[in-house]
């Protein structure tokens, strides 16, 4: 089984290729700008390093949100175009779930992405990565209130979020994420779209 993983939902490009239970190439790089310029060349480097062509892929797993709108669209467009062209299985996944899966703590886990003005994209998972609170665009304090009755909670984030919880830096375990979704059914590439969790300002103002 040969799987390509792509996550561009934050300021980072997280991507890797897994061949038969082994992570053979990966990139974890922060981008202030130029993600649109470099994302594909970096993915091509992963193929070269793995010694396979895209035609040998069996599956693509791509993060469809939440997070940076533009960032997500870059990863999704590359992934859905590739899956469509190669006619292979593609599975879109939540970046917050990927954050929970990557964390081995035996506690409740609260992955967080800064959404500005005291809002976050966040969720709460138990130690087995089952969702306790769904992925949401939510006022940080409201999410914290929802976690109040849970025994022990760690936050996982790459942003500077001021919070009275133990905070772990997010470092994706690409092999673990890929193994988690490797046998998922996948969907039609045309239907792979970002999950924004938030309407555009224009839609909000217009009450649409």
């Amino acid at each position, binding site marked *: 089984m040969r799987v390509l993983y792509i996550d561009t939902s934050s300021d980072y490009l997280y991507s890797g290729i897994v061949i038969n239970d082994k992570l053979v190439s990966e990139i974890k790089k922060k981008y202030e700008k*130029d993600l*649109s*310029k*470099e*994302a*594909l*060349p970096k993915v*091509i480097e992963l193929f070269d390093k793995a010694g396979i062509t*895209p*035609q040998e892929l069996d599956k693509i797993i791509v993060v469809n949100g939440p997070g940076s*709108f*533009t960032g997500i*669209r*870059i990863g*999704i*467009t*590359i992934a*859905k*175009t*590739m899956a*469509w*062209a*190669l006619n292979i299985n593609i599975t879109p996944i939540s970046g917050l779930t990927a954050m929970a899966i990557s964390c081995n703590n035996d506690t409740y886990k609260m992955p967080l992405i800064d959404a500005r003005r005291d809002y976050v994209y966040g969720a709460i998972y138990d130690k087995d990565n089952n969702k306790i609170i769904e992925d949401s665009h939510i006022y940080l304090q409201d999410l914290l209130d929802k976690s109040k009755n849970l025994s022990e909670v760690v936050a996982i984030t790459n942003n500077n979020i001021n919070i009275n919880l133990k905070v772990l830096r997010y470092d994706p375990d690409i092999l673990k994420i890929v193994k988690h979704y490797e046998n998922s059914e996948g969907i039609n*590439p*045309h239907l792979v*779209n*970002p999950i*924004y969790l938030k309407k*555009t*300002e*224009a*839609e909000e103002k*217009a009450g*649409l």
Partner: protein
Amino acid sequence: MKDVYILGIESSCDETSCSIVKNGTVEIATSTSTQIAIHENFGGVVPEIASREHVKNITIVIEDCLKKANMKIEDVNAIAITYGPGLIGSLLIGLEAAKTLSYIYNKPLIPIHHIAGHIYANSLVEELKFPLIALVVSGGHTELIKMTDHFKFEKLGGTLDDAIGECYDKVARVIGLSYPGGPKLDKLSKEGKPTYKLPIPLNDNSYNFSFSGLKSAVINLNHNEEQKGNKINKADLAASFQDAAVKSIVSKTKKALKDYDINNLIVAGGVAANSILREALNDMCKENNIHLSIPPMKYCTDNGTMIASSGYYAYKLNRKADYYLNSMSTTPLQ
């Protein structure tokens, strides 16, 4: 000579479009997903919504185009893509898709400037004859460009403020016409006469345009008449506005043709569909023995066909990009 097929992708504003063109001049198939109905709700294009629509539609539009052409990507010689200028979030959807296809199918990636695309839309009617003057009139551009050969552009002048299409839409809104108001204003103006006195914009020796003064004059006139309790004749106001705008465009175009002693004029961009402008340019060209080419409406608005067509001439000149190609919201014509 073997036929050359180029697949072109355009996503710089609110149309997701893919087309296959043979030898730069023959449209094989085109598929376009337009978002006009969506943006009508907001009185103009909302960039974030446009990007969301592009990502939804991009692979569907490409697949539809290939189906219509009864071709596979393997059958095309290269992939041409609009890299700018335009809405950055919109541009990069087409760009990432084009780069990915270029990589997967090992086809050359041809970067196309959006304005070059509009100009080359004329190739679908007749091959470009050089030297020529290109008048580009659209929602985002008003420019006079001199061309001495394929992809040899010299910008003579452009708008100093609003683009002509933008000005049309804004004036249309003042008159009470819904977005996109330009074509509606064109239609309404035919029922009126240019009876209102409006200034001819930037009546100077340059090849530049300025439409914000004209726009303000229309808004002020409308406002003052309302204050006085006078009823505005909307058709007459539309006709007066068109008269001033078109006179300015035609006079600057004529000056460029005369100064450079050029006998070929091509018109490009969405506003090339404007009936009064077409008529006035036609008359001016007839009087001055100038060969005029205006593409049919379907090639005037944003479309993949013009990108595929210009892609052919760029391909012939070996103008290729690598996978580091990026989208640019503003970028000089080249």
